[in-house]
């Protein structure tokens, strides 16, 4: 008898000839939180999908309670008590909270009719036992990301999962929500559930995980007890080398004001936002998800124009009503959702990079392929995009390389004001440091950068100045010297009672 509830033995998996997993072994004990760590492309997601039966391994065995198992789809693994919460959430936006929990397994009456009363009663009971307060009849479409995650967890719970896999559950959560989530995970662990937890935030893993298994380039590197390992060791295991400085911020003397925002308002999103952004400055915009930070960025960039207030760019008052106009004024916006707003995943790298300035490569609308290709190539090279060639499809790149393409695209517009919305979300440690290094360099060259981030270390490590938003209002402003974790959290959450429903 092994102590493991789940044992993967020498799993290999290839996709169209490329080996994504090579002889990976992995053991999971009941009642532990086992972190799965590795850079993007290390094979974590594939491993998870092998466990849940979405993919089948080419070689190797899976043992559940010491018996070999073979899952041909997600249905079978669920029946065996394995539940997964994927990075991309899998709720049904048009169904309500209660039905989302029981979708496909709605309780039935004797006559085989869906028993709605029982469904709502059980959903309510379940959410209560998890300590989550949600309106059962609210459609999933209107839930915040954190709330959606709670519904996913409730769903996993409702099938009495003995193994729960969480793939980057915290990447879009705010600190409080993360705390809520962790409380829940600890309770599950205490009940004997085995949890596989994937995250790029090392701090979290030290806080939560018992053991950690590291993958690199599809191969197994090692498994350690969390309490026996240091942060630097973990990074070395992940990337195979040492990264010394994650936040390489240079000190730059801020120049003239290039972007001034006064009383900026968009009904329903944010109200009376004021700030200045100077040349060579990185201004951090902190706050909870949904505090209106992204809406401010979108308003400045003209995607969802403001309904009130003023914007001055380089001293000139402007009314920005479209991204086109913003780009002409020297603004660039790297959005938080790469797949949806940042990139065209199904197109190659080149047209992705050239899209905002395509007209520059054209004479009266007629495209000049050569100059386009040359510029795209230069931009991609400068960003050290790792790809076979510049005609590779963007969706074939790893998350970090995709973000580099997005950055290359916006930097080739030669912006004077750069807005970065969660610039390192879901990016591996190596690329993260590269992005931070780039930000520092750009600021040193005189670019003005507005950085929205939910990661406090990033905010504290990179910003010259920090402003904090809460519920559509600016609730705090701190210089680099003043800013501390406590001050920012307090400004982001003041007067919000945690633990009570609306």
């Amino acid at each position, binding site marked *: 008898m092994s102590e493991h509830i789940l044992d993967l033995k020498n799993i290999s998996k290839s996709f169209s000839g490329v080996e994504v997993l090579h002889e990976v072994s992995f053991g999971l004990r009941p009642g532990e939180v086992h972190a799965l760590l590795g850079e993007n492309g290390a094979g974590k997601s594939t491993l998870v999908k092998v466990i849940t039966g979405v993919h089948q391994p080419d070689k190797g065995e899976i043992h559940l309670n010491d018996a070999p198992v073979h899952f041909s789809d997600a249905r079978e693994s669920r029946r065996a008590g394995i539940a997964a919460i994927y990075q991309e959430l899998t709720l049904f936006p048009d169904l309500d909270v209660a039905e989302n929990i029981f979708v496909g397994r709605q309780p039935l009456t004797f006559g085989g009719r869906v028993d709605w009363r029982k469904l709502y009663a059980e959903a309510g009971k379940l959410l209560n036992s998890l300590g989550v307060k949600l309106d059962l009849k609210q459609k999933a479409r209107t839930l915040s990301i954190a709330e959606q995650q709670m519904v996913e967890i409730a769903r996993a719970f409702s099938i009495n999962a003995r193994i729960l896999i969480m793939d980057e559950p915290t990447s879009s959560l705010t600190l409080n929500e993360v705390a809520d989530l962790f409380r829940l995970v600890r309770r599950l662990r205490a009940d004997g559930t085995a949890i596989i937890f994937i995250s790029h935030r090392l701090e979290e893993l030290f806080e939560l995980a018992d053991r950690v298994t590291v993958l690199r380039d599809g191969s197994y590197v090692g498994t350690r007890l969390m309490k026996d390992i240091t942060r630097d060791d973990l990074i070395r295991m992940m990337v195979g080398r040492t990264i010394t400085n994650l936040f390489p911020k240079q000190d730059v003397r801020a120049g003239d004001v290039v972007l001034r925002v006064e009383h900026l308002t968009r009904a329903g999103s944010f109200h009376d936002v004021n700030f200045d952004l100077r040349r060579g400055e990185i201004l951090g915009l902190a706050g909870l998800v949904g505090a209106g930070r992204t809406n401010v960025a979108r308003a400045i960039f003209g995607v969802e124009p403001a309904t009130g207030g003023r914007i001055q760019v380089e001293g000139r008052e402007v009314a920005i009503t479209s991204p*086109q106009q913003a780009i002409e004024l020297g603004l660039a916006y790297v959005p938080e959702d790469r797949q949806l707003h940042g990139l*065209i995943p199904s197109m190659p790298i080149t*047209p992705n990079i050239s899209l*905002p300035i395509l007209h520059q490569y054209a004479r009266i609308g007629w495209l000049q392929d050569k100059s386009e290709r040359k510029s795209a190539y230069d931009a991609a090279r400068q960003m050290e995009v790792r790809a076979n*060639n510049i*005609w590779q*499809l963007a969706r074939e790149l790893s998350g970090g390389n995709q973000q580099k393409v997005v950055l290359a695209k916006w930097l080739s517009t030669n912006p004077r004001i750069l807005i970065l919305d969660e610039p390192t979300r879901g990016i591996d440690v190596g690329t993260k440091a590269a992005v931070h*290094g780039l930000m520092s360099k750009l600021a040193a060259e005189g670019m003005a950068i507005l950085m929205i981030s939910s990661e406090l270390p990033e905010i504290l490590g990179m910003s010259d100045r920090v402003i904090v938003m809460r519920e559509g209002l600016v609730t705090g402003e701190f210089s680099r010297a003043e800013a501390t974790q406590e001050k920012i959290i307090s400004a982001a959450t003041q007067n919000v009672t945690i633990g009570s429903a609306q």
Partner: protein
Amino acid sequence: MKAGAITESKSASLISEYAPRRSFLSKFQRWEWMLVGLILLDVLINTRLSPFFLDARNLSRTSSDFMEIGLMMLPMVFIIITGNIDLSVASNMGMSASFMGLLHNMGVNIWAAALAGLLIGTLGGLLNGYLVARVRLPALVVTLGTYAFFRGIAYGFLGDQAARGYPAAFTYFGQGKVFGTLVPFSVALFIVLAVIFGLVLHRTTFGRYLYAIGNNENATLYSGVPVARIKLIIYTLSGFMAALAGLILAARFGSTRPDIGTGLELSVITAVVLGGVDINGGKGTMLGATLSLFLIGLMRFGMGLLNIQGQVQGIVIGFLLILSILLPGVAQQISSSRNIGIYPKSVLISLGVLAIFIAFFLFFFWSRAPVIAGG
């Protein structure tokens, strides 16, 4: 510290500028070769079956038969590449031609009437564009509404009347040949326009924007592309081309009835999709669509020579449309699941389904037999 001064752990392959660019385009080119092959095959079979097939006069006449579809197809390629659709083109065609016919019946000069027809068609396209791009209604819903609306206006204009007696100078556009050749005017017009539309699609920023919108509209918008304006333009263009096609069809018939061109929207969409344009947007070429237009035209012509009714020809075209999407997918499935065994259950199900279809066709022919005997 310099940007990106971290060496990658993997062999940091330097990105290449001149790479197998083919990987991006080859898929479509393969499909176009396929269409060329099908056209040749069709010609081969038909020349065997009918001595009249390879007759220049016949071919010239038949090619003008599907040029109206071709003219509406050109902007439809744009629209479908952006991931939208226009179901109203044939109705718009009817509205424009009927308006011209109405004015002609009222004694207005034919050229002024034709111009008015083009104008009303363009306005119809503008209405579609406005509702899709600015009001942001789903294209399918909007053009379904205008499908009824435009056709209704056509009936309103002409009622149960027909407009006739167009002057020869006008009917030239539908019936005439380019000076000194056998090439019908409409064919020449189509080819010129197809080249222009193709160049716009594949060689200009506008064309690139269409692909970008079809692949990811949001990201395109965020990149500063005036998405709404582009949609407005292509729908307006579609309206204009539908009107132009309507005038040419009216000129070819020498008369206009309000039901002119009914149902052609499906032929147009069939040609576009069979040409390899992805109905979900983002992929496809003008060459492919044009080739498929000629393939369909030649097939229909060949079947017509064999006295197969137009509607029955639809069976073949329908199967061709489905198979064009089905076969590549099935081939891929078979090649990717080579090592998956055959399950007894799936065999049983397949046999059951097969039995159902056999039973259906046995019944189909059995129940029909007396008619044949009697007729």
